[in-house]
């Protein structure tokens, strides 16, 4: 529906896989930073005059 590739990630991580968890979080953070802030899927405040 128009969410950029790179913003959504899926992973299976067992509670024993702490290093994998760290790796995935790093990769996700990098990928999401690269796409930039999600401006679209944010409710804009109504402007009150």
């Amino acid at each position, binding site marked *: *529906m*128009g*969410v*950029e590739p790179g913003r959504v990630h899926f*992973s299976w991580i067992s509670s024993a896989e702490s290093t994998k968890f760290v790796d*995935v979080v790093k*990769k996700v953070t990098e990928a999401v930073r690269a796409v930039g802030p999600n401006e*679209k*899927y944010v*409710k804009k405040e109504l402007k009150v005059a």
Partner: protein
Amino acid sequence: MQAYTEKMREIARRLLKECRVETVIGFRKGSMPMMNEPCLVKSIDDVDQLVWDGNCGINLANYLTNRTDKIAVFAKGCDSRNIVTHIIENKIKREQLVIIGVPCKGMIDKRRIRSMAPGEITEVVEDGENVRVRGADFEKSFPRKDMLQSNCAVCIHRNPVIYDELVADLVPEQQNVDRYEDVRAIEAMSPDERWQFFEDLLAPCIRCYACRNACPLCYCPTCFVDESAPQWVGKSQNPVDVRTFHFLRAYHCAGRCTDCGSCERACPMGINMRMFTKKLEKEALDQWGWEAGLSLDQRPPLDWYRPDDPQDFIK
């Protein structure tokens, strides 16, 4: 179509008389042209209300949810697939049902016909290959095949997949249909274009939930949109809330939707929200070769695990 109607009344009368069922679920004429409404017939005296034509696009499986009586229900191809889904999901028991199959010739698109008529329509009659539309000062005729609902134009399961008896001979299924041209066009867009496409598609939505209410799949006792503790989605008409409602509803229909078109038909704003469910329908077909509601013996992809499930997206 008159032959269908006659046969339906005959079957309904017989089933009620023999006490095989307590209720017959079918259609009767609505108060306006092209607006047939579902009706529950419980007495032989009311059997003559039943009608059939190209305006019976509402999905009757929706009226079976959690019923406890013995029911006869008329089922087009799509209704029958939703009945199968209902049985699989324990919303009705097969033993309660007498399924009267209705080989379907496609439903006509009331909005298209209204848009092509020069004034207010007072009567719409289908005679074979044509649809005749009458108003106070005009009369027009359209080829029926050009006036089908968009989902019916690409339907490949017009014959009921499950039935106890039929109102007519089976119809030939449409061959070589490209079901997903519209979905592919959206897939080909850039993320920004796609965002804008759905922004425009949903802009007229008034959150009336007619689409949800018309859908046989939407039977949760409390829908996520009505829940207030926790509140999953804002209740406003803010585009973000509207979009959240639509894509979540679509996900709840994933692997279950039969593209019956009830949702789109019910929408007072003429929104084609099927563009969400159809994408998921295509996905279920591509990923698991799955089409919803074709058999009572197969579990749907989303309540089943297979070691060979595609999972390339999981990193």
